[in-house]
Structure formats: C-alpha cells, structure tokens
C-alpha cells in the first residue's frame, strides 16, 4: 500500500505541473513556509499556480493567476462543520465586479475539459439534493423540513450520548487498552484497519515526547522557547487580517513572553526582535505577557508575511506529522528570540499605492 505512511513511495505515472488553490490560504496556513515558498512554488516543481481568492494574501502573492471569487454574501451555498448543524448560506447581493463563485469557476473549467455532465444542476438544486440525502442517511425527514423552512437544521439530537449502547468501534466491540498496532483515526470509516506492531508502536498506552518541543531535545540548548501560535479573537485562521477597524485595535503582530524570558534576553516592551530557528525567522515587536510560562512564547496566528518587518511566523513551524492524526503540530516548535539587527536581516520594503501595501523588495 502506497500512501503517506508507506516506507517505499510508489512512482506515479504522471507529474503534477499545475495547482489550483481555493477555499484556503495554503501558503500562509501550512507549516515550514520557506519550503512551501521555495520548493513547492518553485517553477521547476509547479509551472502554473492559480488562486481562487478574495484578497492579496500570502498564497495569492505566489500565484501566476488570481481569480477573484465571491464573498459569503454573494453566492448561495450549504455549510456544515464540526457541529451538529447544516446551514444555508444565502446570496444577499449580486457578485461585485467580475467575481465568480468557486462553483461557477470549477463549472467553467470542467466544461472546457469535457466534464460538463457533472454540472447540470444549479447550486440551489445541488443544495436541495444534498440536504435531502443527509435527511435520508440519518433517517430523519425533519432535517429537510427544518432546512427548507428555517435555513438551518440540527442533525443530531442535543441529548446525544456517544457510545451509549456500549458498543465501541473496535474489532472486539469493547474498549481496548491493549491494541496491537495503531488504529487509524475515524474508525467509523475503517473500523478494523490497523497498522501492524512491527511498525514500531507499543501496544499499551505510553508516553512519547514531542517531536521537537522537549527539554531533552539537543536543539533545546540553542532554541529554548516553545512557540505557540494562539488563535486570536480577531481572526478565523487568516481571515480578517486586512479589516481596517480590527487593525486599529490590533495593529501588528507581536511576540509575547513572560518577564523572566524578557529579562534573560535584556528585552523591553516595544523592542524589535528576531524570532528564529533552523527553518526560518520572523522580525516583529516583542511584548511582556505573564500569561505565558517560562520557556514559551507566542505569536498570534493569522498575520500575513507583508505585515511583518521581515520573515513570518509560519517559517518557524515544521511539516513533520505523526501517524496518529491528520494534522500538523504547529506548537511542536522550538525557537530563540534575539534583538533585531537590521544590517543582518534587512526589513521588507513596503510601498503604499492607493492605500494598499505592495511589497517592493525582500521577496514575499
């Protein structure tokens, strides 16, 4: 079996030459940003990159072509998430300028590629079909009625107690403390899929240290701070990075650490510092905040690269994943902080045209 956990990658019969990004700020939100910008976006690897995007964010700045898309107020959609509701997104105004929705863009592309047979319905008809299928699958016609009437439907009862019948999604049907091999996430999809013990996983619960952020890691001597990237109240990931009213209240990225760590480095509030490790750097102001324990620091997530004096926080994170979950470990990161030397690390040069920042020198 070839895949992300395979020891021997399979050769693929095709080479990827182009990529389209949509519904994501890929270059900003994925870790080890220098590798993403310099390797993934290198023309030798991707000859043509397209971004379906509203704003000139980190990803848009890397792309050959940016297609302006509609905002949430300009097209119909159906929205679910990590909660028990399905909601209707209703178009409130016509698309502004030349914007098209993701749906329209993908439909247009599909037609050019001879795949128009998948796009015969309107978005509204697809939405009706989706909610109907959900109601059928959950054997609850109320879902479809509620959705059509109110624009929102609850999929699970509020008093749901998972596993209340005592049947666990394990091969034995019981809770297992001793598991030979690691059961892949989402057992509902592959309840008996296990990675074998010979891949090195102990069968009983045990402790394993973090990949990087651990005091016994030899790197800790050089990079003694764990970097958090807290989700700010003023973002949903990177969305809202450019809202002027929010920028008045929260004008720039800051690295925060407690008074002990500030004193160790001879730093004061408002100093400009360089946060760095062997993957990259970020240059920004520092602020004391005793909310953070010793050996930790924080840069709120969601700032774009052009909002830093140089670099960016996502340069510091690592793309390392482990076999137990499908996400990146953004906080499993060690860094150090030092006063900024503008001769060693020149600032990114920003010009203002029409009230908008344009990066002139110093790359993205």
């Amino acid at each position: 079996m070839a895949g992300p956990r395979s020891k021997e990658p399979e050769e693929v019969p095709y080479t990827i030459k182009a990529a389209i990004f949509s519904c994501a700020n890929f270059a900003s939100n994925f870790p080890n940003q220098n590798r993403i910008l310099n390797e993934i976006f290198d023309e030798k690897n991707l000859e043509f990159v397209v971004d379906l995007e509203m704003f000139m964010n980190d990803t848009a700045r890397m792309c050959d072509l940016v297609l302006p898309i509609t905002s949430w107020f300009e097209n119909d959609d159906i929205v679910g998430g990590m909660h028990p509701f399905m909601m209707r997104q209703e178009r409130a105004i016509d698309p502004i300028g030349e914007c098209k929705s993701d749906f329209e863009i993908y439909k247009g592309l599909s037609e050019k590629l001879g795949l128009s047979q998948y796009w015969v319905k309107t978005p509204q008809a697809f939405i009706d079909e989706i909610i109907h299928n959900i109601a059928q699958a959950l054997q609850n016609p109320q879902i479809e009625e509620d959705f059509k009437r109110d624009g929102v439907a609850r999929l699970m009862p509020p008093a749901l107690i998972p596993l209340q019948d005592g049947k666990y999604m394990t091969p034995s049907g019981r809770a297992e403390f001793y598991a030979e091999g690691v059961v892949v996430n989402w057992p509902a999809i592959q309840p008996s899929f296990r990675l074998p013990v010979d891949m090195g996983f102990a069968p009983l619960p045990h402790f394993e240290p973090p990949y990087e952020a651990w005091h016994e890691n030899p790197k800790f001597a050089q990079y003694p701070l764990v970097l958090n990237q807290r989700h700010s109240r003023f973002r949903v990931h990177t969305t809202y990075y450019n809202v002027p009213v929010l920028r008045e209240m929260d004008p720039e990225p800051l690295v925060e650490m407690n008074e002990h760590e500030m004193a160790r480095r001879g730093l004061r509030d408002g100093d400009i510092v360089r946060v760095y490790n062997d993957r990259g750097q970020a240059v920004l102001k520092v602020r004391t905040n005793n909310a953070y324990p010793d050996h930790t620091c924080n840069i709120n997530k969601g700032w774009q690269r052009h909002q830093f004096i140089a670099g960016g926080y996502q340069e510091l994170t690592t793309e390392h994943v482990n076999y137990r979950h499908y996400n990146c470990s953004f906080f499993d990161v060690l860094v150090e902080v030092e006063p900024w030397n503008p001769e060693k690390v020149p600032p990114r040069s920003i010009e203002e045209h029409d009230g908008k920042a344009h990066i002139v020198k110093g790359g993205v």
Partner: protein
Amino acid sequence: MAVAETEQKPIVISPKPDHIPHWGMVIDLNRCIGCETCAVGCKIKNNLADGVWWNRVLTIGGDGLDVADGSVEQPRAYALPLSCQHCENAPCLKVCPTGATYRTADGLVLIDYNKCIGCRACIQACPYGVRIFNEEQPKHEYTDFDLGAAEALPHEQGVVEKCTFCADRLEQGLDPFCVDVCPARARFFGDLNDPDSEVSQLIEERHAETLHPELGTKPSVYYIPPEKVRTHPTGLDRLQLNAADVVHE
C-alpha cells in the same frame, strides 16, 4: 420612554407621571470575555470616524489586549469595558464653559455639537478618559459609504464626542447597541430609580461597584467585580500547588 436630543432640552415621557427614570448600566466582569464586540459594534452603529472609539475594552492588569498581570506563577487578567459613565455629578459638565455638555432629566450626559467650542476642558476634567476631541476633520476612508444607524449624527471637526447611551435607540424603546450585541450577555440596562428593575437588583445582589467612587462623580455604570478565585497556576507550578498557596481575592 425618555427622549433625548442634542439640539434641545429633552422631553421626558414616562408611564408613571411622577416617575422619572435614571438610566443605568451594569456590566458583569465575570462574563466579559474581552471579545471587543461591544467596542466594534458601537463604532459601526455610530459611524465613528477612522481612529475614533467611544467604547473600549481594556485588559485589567496589562497595557495591551490580553496581557496578563501578576506574576508568572499567578497571572491574572480581566477585561474592563469602558465608555462614558454618565455621571450624576459629572465633572465634564461642571467645567464646560458653553453648556454644550448637559445632563437630561433621565440621566444621560450628552453633548450639543452646536455649542461645543472644542476647548477640551471636559477632557481634562473627565477622570475616565472617555471623551474624544476631533482635532482633524473626521475621516471615513475604509468604505465609501456611511455605516451604522440612520440616526447616527455626523461627526464634526473641532468638537468633543463620546458615548450617548444610544439616546437614539432609547427613543425607540431599544437598549443601547453594546448591550444588544454582547455575545456573553455581560451588559444590562435599565432604570436605577426603580428598585425592582434588573439593574437595581443586580447592583444589590452582586455587590456591583462604580469606578473611582472616591472622586464623587456618581457614575450610572456599575461593574460586578470578578468573584471567583483566579490562580491559574501555569506549567509545572501546577504540580507543586498546595491549598495553602492559593490566594483568594
């Protein structure tokens, strides 16, 4: 329902002919999460100019948003929403040379922009720092259209402005906008002259306090103080914490 306008003395309309309400607000600091929805809501609803805020949410114990105070072992931080306190004994009113700042019979401290000469004596007098002077022509450059309520007054250069307890909304029987939009339901509004009103009862039951009572300003805004123990031991300190080490505030 009270009517308060900036161009003439208010007409008080009350269901009880002999009862004049005293509008007041209670803010529960145990519920406030520092989300700034009230601050941004006020800014939008009143179509405030770029850079102008009538309502701010400060972090108690720190200079910036969410900056904790106290020690690394025992940090603490609370949020404090702050706007005009609509004082009964308003110092701003006393020092205003033209009478531009005035107080309505139902307790709102308002500014008549037509009479304000921009001397800023009121800003010096106000101990809460909630008044704003428009030195420059107010700009609205983020959008090319006005925001907020139809009743929002235009903003003028050379005058002082501040929170009005949403006098325009009170006219319509609505609560101030900040009360309406608070997602934590931390704000309450009502008649301080009515002992059975929600605000009066909260003040008594929850021991709500005003800011700087020693100054004698007699604000109409009350704060329910943070009540719970907030030790939040951090990191490895949690393993060493003994009951004797817990500090109760």
